[in-house]
């Protein structure tokens, strides 16, 4: 039935969910390129695998839930979810890792809650946490940058590795990420400064390691998102601010045991989280102050988990924990409405 009562306004600024999502996807491109240059073709294959999974899962779930395919399939939110996830998993992990992760993220993280807009948890991080808990062995072995191993694996080889497993010794070109390196180094009594000197952490373009370069690429993409006002400033400022302050505090306290600020900023998924993951509006706080608190909480938790937790990087768990706190944060950070006293 055509609804004859339509309400003002009859004008719109022509923004749309799709445009927002595509903007985010666009901003992830520099990181994709850097990743591709430094870690080989793995990311591309994983990305296509993830997108194919996402399409299939979206289709099946929408059919099962009896929802129309059209606006829901094309909102590109699943694309952003799996893109976030793909950057988190080792580029040459077996194909079923990314497939299971994407499927879990979309089914359990989104559709079972009622679809886009109703999910309390960040689907990408839910998928990542699922993978990390379920397949820790696969998830903690990161492909070493080609710079370091000197192995520039051709596309076809990468493809074979992902789909049929490895033929040669894995130790040669997989290893620990800077964060796990730092963890095990510190564990064995090596001082943080000395860990920083280790070849994996220092070798690369301009003396920065591959992971740092990916982070920088994310930072550049993130600045673009900030400038186009696609994301709110509270997220990166709160998150990075909290991380910098805590890291600086502890590093000043004891530089032997606590890694410097620069290390925390350029290792693991810091920048990915700051500009691409925690900025997911659905699962984050929705009030201006709330966003700042939410982001700062994640920054703090990331530092805590990195230093004292069971897993080397704490992005996923920090975000999921703060997701739980969102309703509370929202409740207590409502802005003062004009005409009301505080």
């Amino acid at each position, binding site marked *: 039935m055509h609804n004859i009562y339509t309400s003002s306004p009859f004008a719109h600024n022509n923004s749309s969910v799709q445009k927002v999502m595509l903007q985010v996807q666009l901003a992830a491109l520099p990181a994709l390129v850097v990743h591709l240059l430094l870690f080989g073709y793995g990311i591309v294959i994983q990305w296509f695998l993830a997108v194919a999974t996402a399409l299939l899962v979206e289709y099946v779930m929408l059919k099962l839930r009896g929802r129309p395919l059209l606006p829901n399939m094309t909102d590109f939110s699943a694309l952003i979810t799996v893109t976030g996830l793909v950057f988190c998993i080792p580029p040459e992990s077996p194909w079923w890792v990314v497939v299971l992760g994407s499927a879990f993220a979309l089914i359990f993280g989104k559709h079972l809650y009622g679809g886009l807009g109703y999910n309390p948890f960040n689907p990408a991080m839910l998928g990542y946490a699922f993978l990390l*808990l*379920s*397949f*820790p*062995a*696969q*998830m*903690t*072995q990161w492909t070493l940058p080609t710079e370091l191993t000197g192995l520039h694996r051709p596309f076809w080889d990468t493809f074979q590795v992902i789909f049929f497993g490895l033929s040669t010794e*894995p*130790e040669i070109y997989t290893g620990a990420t800077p964060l796990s390196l730092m963890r*095990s180094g510190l*564990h*064995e009594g090596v001082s943080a400064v000395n860990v920083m000197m280790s070849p994996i952490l220092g070798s690369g373009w301009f003396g920065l390691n591959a992971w740092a370069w990916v982070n920088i690429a994310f930072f550049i993409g993130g600045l673009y998102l900030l400038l186009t006002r696609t994301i709110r400033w509270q997220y990166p400022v709160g998150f990075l601010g909290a991380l910098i302050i805590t890291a600086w505090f502890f590093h000043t306290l004891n530089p032997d045991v606590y890694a410097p600020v620069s290390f925390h900023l350029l290792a693991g998924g810091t920048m990915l989280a700051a500009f691409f993951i925690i900025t997911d509006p659905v699962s984050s706080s929705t009030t201006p102050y709330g966003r700042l608190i939410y982001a700062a909480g994640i920054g703090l938790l990331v530092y805590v988990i990195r230093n004292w937790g*069971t*897993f080397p990087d704490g992005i996923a768990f920090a975000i999921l924990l703060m997701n739980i706190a969102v309703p509370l944060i929202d409740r207590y950070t409502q802005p003062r409405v004009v005409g009301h006293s505080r």
Partner: protein
Amino acid sequence: MKTTTLSTTMLRAAGLMGLFVVVSVGLLVAVNSFTQPKIAEVERQVMLNTLNQVMPTRYYNNNLIEDMTWVTAPDALGTTQPMPIYRARLDGEPAGLVIETIAPDGYSGNIHLLMGVFADGRIAGVRVLSHRETPGLGDKIELRKDNWILSFNGRQLTKDNAHTWAVKRDRGDFEQFTGATITPRAVINAVKHTLDYVNLQGVRLYE
């Protein structure tokens, strides 16, 4: 009228509750006295089974559980607390030792180990009693998850082969686990230190 209702209600409630509690506690006392010896017996048996995992019965014929002493060796056993040592003897001669030891530098805290050492310094067996390592990564030290722990069997520690007591990444003989090198390192070190201690002490531990 009202006061009598109140007092009768109160007395009735108190009496009934008292009755129930007396019957219940009486029953418990009875069952307890019946099961207590049985439990003690089972506990002993279980203990023995555990010890036998690292010290097979065919190598000794004394009462392993009774022949126990405490030693304190913070450097070797990873704790300042005294740890139990069970002495296995074959016809009165020293046959081997079963030692509880701790690897203090596990990824998430202490790893409690039980190891059996023959009198000649060969390892009879090592088992993990308890740990808090990451599931899927470090927990392969459990026999239920992986056979890795069996790779200690029959090993000796000499001056020449001390450097082989390490994971392959550190140019040793032992496999490491994908994604977790800290845990096997910790276990290997703990076993190595304990073995070192046993070799050093020699027959003194059987006294």
